[in-house]
Each structure stands twice: as C-alpha cells, then as structure tokens.
C-alpha cells in the first residue's frame, strides 16, 4: 500500500470513529457534571472506580470474572445486530442457559471433567439457542418484531426458571437454587489468590470476540452478513439466503447468551441461583452499542462496564454514593452514543470548515 493509500485509510478510520468518539467524550463529560451536581469530585469518582476494580489482585480477579458474561452477551447482541436484528432477550437466554447447564451437570455428575465441562457448556449454549429460535421464526413467518418477542420471552424464561428451581430442579430448600454442581464441572483457576482467582473464561470470551471479528471482516460469509445488514431486499435479489443468515446469527446469538449463563455457573456460583444475574443480559446491549456493535472493540466496553460493576460497592463505602450511580453512568453513555449521528455531522462540518480555512477559502 502506497503512502497516499495509507493516508486515506487513516482518514477513513477517523471518519468511522468521528461520531462515536465525540459522543463518548460528551457522555463522560455529562457523567462528570452529574458527579459534581451530586457533590463528588469527578476525579475522586474515577479513582474510586479504578482502585475498586483494579487496585488489588483480588479486585482485578473479580473484575475479570465479571467481564466474561458482559463480553459474551455483548457479542450476542452485536452478532444479531450484524443482520439488523435486535436481540433484547439475552437475559432470558442467559438465565435458561445457566439453569440447563447446572441441571445437566448435576445429572451427569459421574462423567469425567474433561467430558463434563465441554458438555455443560454445550447444554447451556443449546438452551440459549433454543430460546432464541422462536423469536426469529415468528419474525420470518408471522412478521412479529423480534424486539417485542425477545423482550417478552425474557420474562417467560425468568419465571419458568424460578418455577423449576423452586420445584423439580431445586435442592429442596426454599432458597431458589439447584444443588451444587460436581467438582468435575467446575472450571479450575489458572491463578488463585485466597478465595478468588482467574479462570480461562474471560480469555475464552475474548478469543471468541476476536474470532467473530475476523470471521465477519475477512470471509465471504462475513461479506454476505454485512450485505444482509445493509439491505435485505438487495441481498435477496442478489441470491443471498437472507432468512437463513438471520436465523443462523440469531440462534448463534442466543447460544452465546446461554454460554454466558453456563460459564457463570461453572466459574463463579457453581450452582444456579434464582437471582444470580444482576442484569448481564441487558448490560450486553450497552456493551455492544457503546462500541457500535463491532466485536473487535468489545473488550474495551466489556472491561469498562465490568469495572463499573466491580466498583459499585466502593462508591457507597468511600464516596457515600448509591451503587445505582453506575446504572446512571451507563444510561448517559448509551444515550450519548445513540446521538452519534449528530456528533458525526458536527465533526464533518468542522472538518470542511477547517479544510476551507486551510485552503484559503474566505
């Protein structure tokens, strides 16, 4: 690639970030303003989040473990969004995946770990996929909007799991949990420090994100998926199997959410709890859209949101701020990103102005 081509490429990537970056900067400024209004110095807020999430080996391990489900649900949302479908149902798929995998692990306890761990993951992913499929089927056959169907199926999944865990699949207590899974199904720590440690799960999730990014950007399938995302009519006319791609990616999206649930069981809780998810499925939507649903950048939003989640109790302890503040931060950032078209046109206006001034026009 020659020099001019490289320059154009750089200009192109600046162009593609020209809406997102100013939007995020604006979002952070708004958060800082809110902090000031709440009587907290923004710098204190940032340092508290930083030390809370990464200040000690324990904290870092906890943060990393919270990164896993965010990466996977973020990837799930991004993947479906490549074909212009919005999977709002990650929470339900994740819950169902967690319950199915823990029930399976309990039932298949005699199997050796080498077989049990991958099978448990597969069962979780399968449950998530199965819960996602009806939504895309309804969309294609009956014209039901996937946002409505996946949103409602969340509640069906959550209450179904609640019933199952208080009844047939529970451990007999009124705690709303399954029996503990056998040790053979638990992911071993790669590194441990007291009671906490780091498993391979966050790295697996990161590899999945990078793999999906390469798959989408380098292959002929990825091209077809981008085409479907741009225009279903044009793609269909060009012989691309639009419905098949949408079904595949949506089911894959559900599988990733289910896998996130299974990993939570196998690496963190070692059993299914009724309230094990603090809303990872919904956070996945934020994680995806804060980086424009591009899987190659998910690690950034995943780590950031996990840091916020991990530091929330420190806000209360050292700043006397309600932990709900992180929800507000997320919401402000998401709204700013949603307005990025506005930032992009402002950026382009300034760029043309700058070029005009430089070229001596007026």
């Amino acid at each position, binding site marked *: 690639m020659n020099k001019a081509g490289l320059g154009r490429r750089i200009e192109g990537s600046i162009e593609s970030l020209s809406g997102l970056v100013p939007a995020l900067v604006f979002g952070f400024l708004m958060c800082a303003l809110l902090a000031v209004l709440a009587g907290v110095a923004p710098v204190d807020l940032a340092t508290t989040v930083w030390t809370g999430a990464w200040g000690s080996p324990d904290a870092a391990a906890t943060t990393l473990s919270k990164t896993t489900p965010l990466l996977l649900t973020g990837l799930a949302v991004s993947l479906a969004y490549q074909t212009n479908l919005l999977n709002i149902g990650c929470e339900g798929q994740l819950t169902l995946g967690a319950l199915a995998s823990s029930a399976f692990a309990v039932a298949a306890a005699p199997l050796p770990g080498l077989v049990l761990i991958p099978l448990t993951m597969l069962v979780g992913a399968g449950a998530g996929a199965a819960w996602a499929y009806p939504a895309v089927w309804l969309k294609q056959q009956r014209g039901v909007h996937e946002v409505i169907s996946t949103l409602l199926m969340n509640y069906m999944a959550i209450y179904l799991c609640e019933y199952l865990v208080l009844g047939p699949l529970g451990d007999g207590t009124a705690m709303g949990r399954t029996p503990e899974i056998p040790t053979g199904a638990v992911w071993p720590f790669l590194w441990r420090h007291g009671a906490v440690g780091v498993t391979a799960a966050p790295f697996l999730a990161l590899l999945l994100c990078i793999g999906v990014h390469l798959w989408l950007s380098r292959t002929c399938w990825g091209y077809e998926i981008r*085409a479907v995302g741009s225009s279903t009519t044009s793609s269909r006319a060009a012989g691309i199997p639009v419905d098949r791609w949408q079904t595949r990616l949506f089911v894959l999206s559900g599988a990733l959410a289910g896998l996130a649930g299974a990993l939570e069981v196998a690496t963190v809780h070692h059993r299914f709890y009724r309230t094990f998810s603090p809303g990872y499925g919904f956070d996945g939507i934020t994680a995806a859209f804060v980086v424009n649903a591009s899987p190659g950048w998910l690690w950034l939003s995943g780590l950031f949101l996990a840091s916020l989640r991990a530091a929330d109790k420190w806000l209360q302890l050292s700043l006397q701020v309600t932990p709900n503040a992180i929800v507000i931060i997320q919401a402000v950032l998401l709204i700013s990103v949603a307005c990025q078209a506005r930032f992009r046109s402002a950026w382009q206006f300034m760029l043309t102005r700058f070029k005009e001034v430089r070229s001596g026009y007026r």
Partner: protein
Amino acid sequence: MNGDSDNRDRTALIRIEGISKRFGSLWANRDISLDILEGEIHAVVGENGAGKSTLMNILYGHLQPNGGRMMVRGKPVRFRHPGEAIRAGIGMVHQQPLIFPQLSALENIIVGTSSRGGPLSRHRNARDRLAGLCALFGFDLPLHEMAGDLSFAHRQQIEILRVLYREAGILILDEPTSLLAPPEVERFLGLLKSLRQAGHTLLFISHRLREVFATADRISVLNRGRLLQTLNASQSTIEETVRLIVHEDPAAGGDPAVSSKEPASKGIAVRKAGGEPYVVLRNVFTGASDGEPGLIDFSLDIREGEIVGIGGVVGNGQRSLALVLAGLIPVDRGSVRISGIEIDSVRREGDSRRILERLPANPMEEALLPGRALWENLLLGRQRDREFQVRGRLDKAEAIRYACRLLDAADVAYSDVNQHVDSLSGGNQQKVALARVLGGSRRFLILEQPGRGLDIRAQQRLYERIRAMNVEGVTFLILSYDLEELLALCHRVGILYRGGLTGMMEANEASREVLGMWMLGIAGSNDRVVPAVQPRL
C-alpha cells in the same frame, strides 16, 4: 452572460447573485448569478451533477449556500428551511409526488395549511376554492377519492394544486414530465403555459429538450456547477443547447464519443435472424405487487439476442413483470420459461440469478447496499465466485481491482472505492447499479428504467453499451416509462396497460401516437401491430 438588454427592463422577481455551494471538495454550485423574470417560464438544463437540483434546493430553502445572496422582489432573503420559502411565495412540485395514500385528494392538498372556521366549513371553503382552480386549469381530479387509489397524473395534480392553493407565485418543478405518458405530457405543457398566463412564474428542470423548447421563454444551462449561459428560447436551437450542456473545458480535451445530435436518435440495433424464443411467457397471471396491478393473461416471446421494450404509464404492471421473471413473486397461473427452465422451479432452488440479472427501478432500495463501500456494492452477487475467494476467505484486493474496473468502465465519478455508495449523486448511484448488472456474465438482462437520472451523455454511452452487448448475443428486456428510450434501443416495443399487453410494434416502424394511445388504454387496430408471441409452426 445572462442579462440580455431587452430583459433588463422587465422586473427580476428572483435575483440570484454569486451563489456557491460545496459538498466536501466538490463545488455543486459555483458563483451562479441569474435573474428570474416575473411571469416567465425558465428552464434549467444540464448534465447529471451539473448542479440543477442543488440550485433549486437552495431556492426552496432545503439547502443553505456557502456564499452569495438572493433577492425576491428586490428584497434580500435567506431561507433557512422550506417554510420560509413558502411564505415568500415559492412552491415546489417534486418529481415523485409526495402524498399521504390514506387521505383524500382534498386533504392531501390542504394538509398543513392554517384553518379558519370549524373543520366542516374549512373543508367546504377549500373544496370551493379547489374546484375553482381545477376548472381554471382543466384538472379532472376527483377531490374526494383516496390519494393512494389515484393515477400518477392525478397525484401530480395534487402536488401542483398544493402549491397553487398556498398562493405561491413562483413554482419550481423538478422533472415534472418524466413519468407521464405522451398525451399527458402535451396536456401538462399546456398547463404550464396557462399558469404563465395566470401570472405565475415557473422554473423547471428537465432533461427533455424538446419539451423545454416547446414551453420555456429562457433556458439556463448549468455545467459542472457553473452557469454557462442563459439562452432565449426563441433565438436558440436544440443543437446549440446540447452543445452547451456537454461542453467541456477546451483544456480538458473534447469528447469524440458525444455528438451534438438529438439524444433520441434512432439506434441501429442488430438482431440475429430467426433466434429461438429464449424467454417464453404464456397466459401469465400474478398477484398485485406494491400497489401495482399484477399481470393478467400476459403472453410474450423474447428471442435470443433480441432487445424487447415494454412501456406504459407508471403503475400498470411493469414491476410485476420484472419480479415474476426474476423469480421474486410467484406465477399464479400460466407458465414462465427462460432458456428452457421453468421459473417456478428456479425459485425453489433459490437462485434465478444464474440465468438473469435485473436492474430494479429503485436501485438504492433493491440493488445497492446503503452504508457500504463502493467495492462491496459491486461485488454483490459475485462474492462466491472463485476469483474472489480462497477457501472462504474473501480476496479484498482482487474485489477492489474488479470494482475499480467496473466503475471506470461505467464512468462513475468517485474519489475512493471505500466511500459509501450513498455519498454519490443520484445519477452516479444509477451508474453503479448499472455497472454491476452489465458487468456480470449473464445472457439475459432485465433493465427497469435504465436511463433514469442519467444525463444525455451518460444515456448515450449506456445505449451504446447495451447495443454492443446485444451484438455479442445478450438478450434484453427493457422496461421504461420513457417511450423515446424504448424506441431508441429496442427491436420490438409493447405497451402494458392494467396488467395486460395492449400490443407490440417493431420499433423502427412504430407510431408514437398509437403507442401513446395504448399507454392510456385506448386500443385501436393498426396494421403495424406485430404478434407478441411466435406463431406455432
């Protein structure tokens, strides 16, 4: 250049001084100064991307100029949005009528105007005023019918009445005749003259110089964003105007491919004698598609190596014909065979594209990928070809080389193959879609409105390319609202009316009058009619 001395004493209703507008690095309008005189019909002509639409959009407040100023009746004005232009007495009639299909024609006209009195008296007053306007200009618009059920010509009347109802003295018309049947065009041009008689000032954009010369008092020629000259229609000729429109900078060198002849010069299309029927439609019925009637007992043979054109007024089934051939809507009754393959079976296999390629009438919605790079748009449909992939991995460098080749062959004005297709002008988007369709290796091509949005020069290049491909043996079906286009290109021309084929003629002995009557559903026996279907031997 514009101010002829005899025009100076007439009042300039709108004075444009040094207007400039740029998009990125491109000057769409550069230092344009122009007077629009009270009560004249002023035509604006030029190639694609010459800046006609930009200038009109500045006048109507859709766009803000980067420099220069405007005056209306001697008072300087600056329109920040169309509402301000409307208040200054300027109205715009869009090329595609903007209507609310569920509202009546009357409601479509008065929507957005301030009401006086209760809702009932408001409608009554409006009806009385509109009935008066209809009578004055000879409109036959049924005011109480739902706009969605009305013909194109009626929808256009809604657009015009909307402007007149708001008492606009200045009307901007953007290619108003491009979708009308010839007899309707005649009536429409008459309407323009009667509007002038009633004291209105008209500004209209057109690619059809014959119509321009039939109505306009003065003609402004734009070329690459600059105003080249304003001609007095009575003292000028079509030839001179064409020369100005395609005028190149002497420094850049002339273009020998473009002659200054009338664009609709008859094409010498070569046809292989006695070709076998390649496309066979027999008594085909289809359902309606997108508000257009379906096909009703439609039969047609297209021989191998033939160019067949099907005309008709908008909304008479051209879309259904193209969709059924492309395998996108089912055949309800009858049979469709292309190259011996029954189309319904192709559809089941999910890929009719192996035998044909189609250019839809609205490429942005149905053939292009908005928000994606040019190279991705040109690759569409060929992404699985062996030359572009190695074991599933897309060879982007090869795809970009291929895209550049097609873009250059189609004369697309672009700066970078990575730029999004929606950043191009309308004419260039059409060229991109054409580049992809013509660049494939299919033996049968369906082109809907191939010349739409293209300027004279680009149209001529396109027609030459189609003829050259035809000589190589490619079969074409061309669907167009523009009779001149069909007559210039095709061997045989037929007219669709309400889903049925009214008749067919050999293009070189066709009569425009008869075809025009057919477009309005007036069938008459004529000795030039040729059979649509080959007689069985």
